[in-house]
């Protein structure tokens, strides 16, 4: 019996590996093409500003929907039912903040990075330094979570438990993202994200149809079966299984939900996407595309998550991976006909390849945003005080992509045995506590000044980091980063509920405590530019 079984398993690994190689070749092809068409800083940072709204909408969706969304949320729904669905909604509603308060105005005021907007009417050096630091911190956290997740995922999909597959995946993914960014710049990254978004939505639609087919397109039957097979009964379809254990876990979820809904609009790798379109109207339309695509995707995820619970049952999902991350690959195998069938092998390989494409596109976007910020904000405007030309700035951007890639690989390798899933939530919390207050005050509050900006960024960033350092995530929790000591005093794993108000408060107090008068002419320029586009790049 073991003979043919192993042969099929090897066949699945072979097919999955083949599809991975095909994906790598496609993305490298895109990179080569893009590098031939990228000459100026405008090309490298902003993709020449000539993408259409639909293309940018797809790229935004591709940038935003990480493997954590694709596999993680479906897995959460499969294991915890309704609470997984509850978690996903913050990621969608957040786009209304981006749409109404941020996208168009940022498109018109900035040039290449988030700090362009924040430093627009302030004293350049301290503000650029602060905004650049916040950008890089948020992007690196997000990046490490993605890379460690990628390592775990590929190891699981290839059936390797020794740990060498994980290490090599981290190194390989890191090397690929550096190549994409240094050679392809924003053009290459955008096209990789577009391809990924199409693959991801295609994969999700295919799987959803197969799930619905199995339940005769009867959603009530799907829900009933999921509730029954999960072992929780009707409770599976009600809130509480994950976030309702006690008062602390409820407050923790509320804190997370607030950070998700406010953090998206402060994610630097999302903000830079608005510079790739020619006008503010195109930026608006790209967010509308993104909302449509992301909303559809999460609706499909609900079906997939409940489908996995109904078809597989919790025990099988938990046995493969305790966090549920392999629920979708398992479901694909089952829907294709089972572990030992041709259909099962093919569908599993396809879904694994989609997950791999997802990882590649997200890490490329993050590397681009952080290296752009390093080169444009810190190197050109702070270190060289604008005394540099486009050529050396571009060289600095490419070099910093290599350096940031190296740092990310190093940190991910040393963190690969740790539970780093919290880093994504932390990135959102920092974005909501430091970046969002600064952006909103800059755009809408006339009196906001340099001191207020610096206070808001460091206050929001610092409070989020300090609270997490003294939270159960780092010590004293169920899977803490450090074991053996317990120095936590902050009860929640998610700092947002405290650090976001601190960020807003710091911006306000910092502004009032300074004698610096806001520059009325600069504010006039920002307002007119943001709402009409007069003078925009």
């Amino acid at each position, binding site marked *: 019996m073991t003979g043919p079984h192993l042969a099929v398993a090897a066949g699945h690994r072979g097919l999955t590996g083949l599809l991975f190689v095909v994906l790598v070749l496609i993305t490298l092809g895109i990179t080569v093409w893009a590098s031939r068409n990228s000459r100026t800083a405008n090309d490298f940072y902003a993709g020449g500003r000539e993408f259409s709204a639909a293309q940018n909408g797809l790229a935004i969706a591709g940038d935003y929907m990480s493997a954590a969304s694709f596999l993680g949320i479906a897995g959460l729904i499969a294991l915890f039912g309704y609470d997984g669905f509850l978690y996903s909604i913050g990621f969608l509603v957040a786009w209304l903040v981006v749409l109404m308060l941020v996208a168009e105005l940022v498109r018109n005021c900035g040039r290449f990075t988030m700090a362009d907007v924040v430093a627009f009417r302030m004293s350049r050096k301290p503000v650029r330094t602060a905004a650049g630091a916040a950008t890089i911190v948020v992007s690196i956290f997000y990046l490490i979570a993605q890379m460690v997740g990628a390592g775990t995922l590929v190891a699981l999909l290839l059936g390797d438990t020794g740990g060498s597959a994980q290490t090599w995946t981290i190194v390989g993914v890191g090397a690929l993202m550096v190549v994409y960014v240094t050679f392809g710049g924003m053009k290459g990254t955008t096209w990789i994200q577009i391809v990924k978004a199409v693959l991801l939505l295609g994969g999700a639609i295919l799987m959803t149809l197969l799930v619905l087919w199995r339940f005769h397109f009867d959603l009530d039957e799907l829900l009933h079966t999921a509730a029954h097979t999960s072992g929780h009964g009707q409770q599976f379809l009600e809130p509480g299984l994950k976030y*309702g254990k006690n008062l602390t876990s409820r407050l923790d979820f509320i804190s997370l939900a607030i950070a998700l809904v406010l953090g998206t609009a402060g994610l630097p790798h999302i903000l830079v996407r608005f510079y790739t379109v020619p006008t503010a109207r195109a930026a608006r339309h790209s967010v509308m595309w993104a909302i449509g695509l992301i909303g559809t995707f999460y*609706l499909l995820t609900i079906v997939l998550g409940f489908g996995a619970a109904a078809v597989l049952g919790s025990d099988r999902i938990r046995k493969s991976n305790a966090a549920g991350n392999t629920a979708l690959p398992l479901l694909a195998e089952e829907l294709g006909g089972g572990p030992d069938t041709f259909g099962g092998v093919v569908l599993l390989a396809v879904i694994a390849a989609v997950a791999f494409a997802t990882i590649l596109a997200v890490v490329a976007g993050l590397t681009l945003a952080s290296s752009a910020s390093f080169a444009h904000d810190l190197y050109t405007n702070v270190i060289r005080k604008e005394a540099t030309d486009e050529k050396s700035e571009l060289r600095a951007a490419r070099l910093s992509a290599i350096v940031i890639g190296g740092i990310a690989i190093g940190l991910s390798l040393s963190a690969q045995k740790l539970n780093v899933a919290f880093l994504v939530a932390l990135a959102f919390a920092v974005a909501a506590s430091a970046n969002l207050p600064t952006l909103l005050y800059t755009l809408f509050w006339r009196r906001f000044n340099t001191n207020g900006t610096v206070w808001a960024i460091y206050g929001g960033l610092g409070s989020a980091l300090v609270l997490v350092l003294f939270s159960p995530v780092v010590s004293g929790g169920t899977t803490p980063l450090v074991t053996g000591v317990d120095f936590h005093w902050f009860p929640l794993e998610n700092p947002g509920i405290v650090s976001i108000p601190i960020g807003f408060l710091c911006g306000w107090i910092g502004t009032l405590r300074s004698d610096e008068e806001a520059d009325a002419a*600069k504010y006039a320029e920002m307002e007119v530019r943001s709402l009409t586009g007069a003078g925009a790049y």
Partner: protein
Amino acid sequence: MTTSSYRPTPTLGVPFGDPEPDPRAEIYLRVQASPEFQEIRRRYRDFVFPMSLAFLAWYLLYVFASTFARHFMAHRILGAFNVALAFGLLQFASTFLITWAYARNARAKRDRAALNLRWETQEMFR
């Protein structure tokens, strides 16, 4: 003395190093104060500020209901379908609806005026 090393001596009465008034700054201040711009800004803010507060309140209501009003959320409507699922799906619906309403408002109330003002402002820079 070559011409390249020539520097004008500062005229008396004008403090040395004081920047010339920036003509762009004056234009932006003038445009900002114009009734056309004030109208565009009012139309933008009148829509987005209340709408942002409304959707954030609506989302928080959902989050609080899901964590603290679980009996209410568990109430079944039809078959396995309960209030919690309906409330969650309504969040999707409201997000799509607000997106549509925002785009419609922008197109109908300020896009044309903003574009006109953009060309007018850029004319002034010439």
